[in-house]
């Protein structure tokens, strides 16, 4: 039986003494059953996230970004076909834990998530404060008073006045509801927060102001974020490194300083070229063709059919090559 956490401050854990990466994902596979066959949503994904760093996962819709996040958090639907690999958080293999232990110790305690369009899924008949404090009331055996004090604290951190705890979701604007959702993810003081499209439903000004808040949190509380987005310009606001996905696979994992100005993988290059920019005059290009079906992905490199730089070698599937500090899944970089 785990210890009772009595006060909000006691909950603040010191990070474990291990030096290893915060999160390590090894050979992760996630396939789903569908009427048409097996959907290979996540295939052979391996990456590491170091302590104190944040990562952006970018890619087109349907490339497996959200499935990857759900696989890490073990929030899987019922039609899972294959779910294998290793997810290590602070050296602990999450996939070996029992469901109950995972629920009690990891989900929301160590890893929390801001799901896509979560601001519209607040319960309309429950006060916001109660919804935000709920994880503490359920899992941390806190008294109501302590939980609400902590809720007020996280509300202040995300920039909402604490008297909003007593309000109902409809009384909050879209931006405030999104902040409340972020507060909900922060309240248990987790080591990793997965943000799935946290600002895509919001206005430009609100989006910028929430990004400011997240940047502040990252700096002051040294939080680790995993930001999933298809909006590349926004992803640059929070990312130390970028994981670029295509058709269920990681095609490039680079530092932000490398990825945004000059990505390595031809797909990432095309993706960056398609982003319209406000200040720099350039003509955005589009990628011809469509991503392959995940039901029946092509053998060899999955981007080959749309790639301008393909050659004979692309018939075979490339491994992840190391290029300096970056890794890229493309035969062009075979020699480093």
């Amino acid at each position: 039986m785990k210890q009772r956490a009595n006060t909000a401050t006691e909950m603040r854990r010191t990070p474990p003494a291990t030096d290893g990466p915060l999160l390590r994902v090894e050979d992760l596979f996630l396939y789903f059953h569908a009427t048409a066959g097996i959907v290979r949503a996540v295939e052979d994904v391996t990456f590491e996230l170091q302590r104190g760093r944040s990562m952006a996962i970018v890619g087109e819709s349907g490339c497996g970004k959200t499935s990857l996040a759900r696989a890490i958090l073990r929030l899987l639907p019922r039609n899972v076909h294959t779910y294998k690999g290793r997810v290590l958080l602070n050296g602990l293999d999450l996939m070996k834990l029992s469901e109950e232990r995972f629920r009690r110790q990891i989900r929301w305690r160590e890893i929390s998530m801001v799901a896509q369009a979560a601001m519209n899924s607040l319960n309309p008949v429950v006060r916001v404060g109660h919804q935000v404090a709920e994880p503490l009331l359920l899992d941390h055996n806190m008294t109501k008073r302590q939980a609400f004090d902590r809720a007020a604290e996280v509300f202040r951190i995300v920039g909402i006045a604490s008297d909003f705890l007593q309000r109902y979701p409809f009384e909050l604007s879209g931006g405030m509801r999104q902040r409340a959702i972020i507060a909900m993810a922060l309240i248990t003081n987790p080591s990793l927060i997965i943000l799935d499209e946290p600002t895509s439903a919001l206005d430009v000004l609100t989006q910028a102001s929430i990004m400011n808040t997240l940047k502040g949190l990252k700096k002051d509380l040294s939080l680790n974020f995993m930001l999933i987005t298809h909006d590349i310009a926004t992803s640059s606001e929070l990312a130390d490194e970028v994981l670029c996905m295509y058709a269920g696979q990681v095609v490039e994992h680079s530092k932000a300083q490398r990825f945004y100005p000059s990505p390595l993988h031809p797909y990432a290059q095309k993706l960056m070229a398609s982003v319209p920019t406000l200040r720099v005059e350039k003509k955005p290009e589009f990628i011809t063709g469509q991503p392959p079906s995940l039901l029946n992905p092509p053998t060899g490199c999955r981007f080959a059919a749309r790639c301008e730089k393909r050659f004979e070698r692309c018939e075979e599937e490339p491994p992840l090559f190391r290029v300096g500090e970056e890794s890229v899944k493309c035969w062009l970089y075979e020699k480093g």
Partner: protein
Amino acid sequence: MKQETLSPVKYRETEDKTLLSVRDLRVWFELKRWGFLHAGFVRAVDGISFDLQKGQAITIVGESGSGKTTLLRTILGLAVPTGGEIIFGGRKLDFTKDSDVTWLRWQVGFVQQDPYGALAPFMTVYRILREPLIINKVKRGEHMPRIREALEEVRLTPVEDFLNKYPHMLSGGQQQRLVVARALILRPMLIVADEPVSMLDASVRVEILELMRKIQRDYDLSVIYITHDLSSVRYFSERVFVMYAAKLVEMTEVNEVISNPLHPYTQALLHSIPDPEPENLTQIRDVPAGEPPSLVHPPPGCRFHPRCPHIMTGLCDTEEPPAFEPCPGHLVECWLYKDGGLPEKR
């Protein structure tokens, strides 16, 4: 009643080319009513005037809740104006007459925001495109040539492969192209597009925008394009109107709005848009505090004054600014420009 805020002088010399002119348009929605009393109005569009020439593309930029969709719905004949007038193709529209509304809807094509939601899932591409032809009583013999032409125009080719497909068999980009084809099929004079690419992936967005631009040029169409994404504006239109709290606060050319934004709201908007650069990581953006005002009780004076960093107390919070023209062709509703010229750089 308040005087018209924007003088309609801009396009008078080329009057015959004006396709749409909107004069002091107001669309107010009544709130709850008790007998003669009512709780007030939502002023979704409150005194907007502009002209649109034939073959011209304009973009309306604004936050959600700024009334841009209501403005668009009014131009489509889906909402009834409570004040002001809309003159389309030289004909002053009377929204109480069915014939006027039907005629208007024929002339205006609509590209919806969410292509999947806008296409009936149980209809094939052929039926989707035939629907407007049937409703508008186009001769049966003309159906097939028109459908073929529209599909070729949006590059859904070979046409035979697509005619019998259902929307779910198409990718997001193809669905949006089908929506464009449907908007085009009646040969409208004007296309209105409500955030046509916001639901699509970055790699497809540019393709759709380029396609719409090409069609606009080929057919000399007028286009009104609504978005909150200023970074794509430059590739799409000639003029940009910035809308804030039911009013147009700035109207100018595309390059002007990016290089020389005058209204403090436009400046804030431009400031908050990131370009994909790694330096963003350390940069905290300047965002005006607060939220857009309620449209039931808009603040007196300039509607941006509670959030404005350059507020002049006594003027901005009491009197509504008219449109000033500090540079030719660049209209801005802000008291900072009351002396006519540009104030010294702040």
